[in-house]
């Protein structure tokens, strides 16, 4: 299973960009996995009349913001989010370490002990 996860992570940036559609009136979100359909085709397929289209390149994701499709680089975003979480965790850990008055070695031992739990 871990192999599958690794495969997923490796392949997730290998696929070609996607085409997404959004009808702001009906608030309907559609992802064209073939990246080949036109607005007219999507409107015919889903019975919509106000569809907007957004093409995504590799590493680009999309969001619906204020009833509009917005694209962003999700790889960079994920790195940034992860860094933000790490920074927050590091700050919380430093505060805790300070409150407990532990040395670096003692702090590491505590983390190991908690992990083993």
């Amino acid at each position: 299973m871990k192999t599958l996860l690794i495969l997923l992570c490796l392949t997730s940036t290998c696929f070609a960009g996607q085409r997404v559609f959004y009808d702001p009136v009906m608030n309907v979100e559609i992802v064209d996995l073939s990246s080949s359909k036109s607005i007219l085709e999507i409107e015919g397929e889903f019975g919509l009349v106000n569809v907007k289209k957004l093409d995504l390149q590799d590493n680009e994701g999309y969001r619906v913001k204020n009833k509009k499709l917005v694209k962003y680089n999700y790889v960079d975003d994920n790195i940034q989010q992860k860094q933000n979480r790490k920074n927050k965790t590091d700050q919380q850990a430093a505060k805790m370490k300070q409150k407990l008055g532990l040395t670096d070695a003692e702090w590491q031992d505590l983390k190991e002990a908690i992990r083993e739990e």
Partner: protein
Amino acid sequence: MKRLILLILLLTTPVFAAPSNTMSITPAASDGTTITAADENSRNNEVSSKFNAHDHTDISQTANTLDVGQGGAGNKDIRANNADANKPFLRYDDTNDRWVASRNGVEITSLVVVTGTDARSFILPESPANNDILRYNSTVWTSISQGTAGQVLTLTGADLAWRGMATQGDMDYRDAVSRVALPIGSSTEVLTVASGIPAWETPGSTVTIGNFTRDMTAASGGVSYTGVGFTPKFVIFLGAVAGDVSGSWGWGDTSNQGAMFRNDGTADETISTTTAINIQTGVGASQTAVVSSLDSDGFSLTWVKGGGPTGTGTVTYMAFK
């Protein structure tokens, strides 16, 4: 058939023409004796009494008509006086108003009654062969010879005709009008329906693999995914926020969902029987999805956001036809 009945009637008539009484003229004349008046009277009486006693009520002939029967109700038989104990007969069944015949005096079969007066109504084909089928061709009764092995009798235009299939593996089906043949397909082709009739086609892909992203901060709601190329039977999903401990391995159709996922952003693996995708980036922070419908060209997911997940999940899918 009428002619046959008449012929039998004529042939059997002499049987019934024989007198029922025996005539014996007495006294017999002897050489050298005298015939007296009494002798003559005796002989005259014998002749007249036998003549007067003879009864033609049961069988009589008027012009060209031979009547059988006493003029009352009941069956009327014409019987062959042959050597058999049970005599064959031709009978008018007065109860059922039909002609019957018996070839052995026991078993009775009804004679076919033919309506119509011209020859085409009752003349049957001569010299029938094994498995011949009687057929009327708008003019006369004729016969259709048996077909060959595997052939079927079909109506072709206005006529009945035998039709076979030329090649091993051919099949028959009905088009808008009649029975027609579907020639055997090629190796690996499969039988499908195109425009309402059977047709061979090369099977298309039965699995489509691809991926899509999910903004982990997106609100709960449905998303349709199209462009798969067919209506899937079910879909397998592998998902995660790359770089996080957030793996999800699941599958779903509209009736059943299931996923193994890393719980609360930790390495602890947990099972869900109600979601097909379950990506968790922290404690209570998740995006989960169920397959809400399998569509003509893809599938739809209903996403539910839990807590405050961050990042963007990438989901690889395998859709099975």
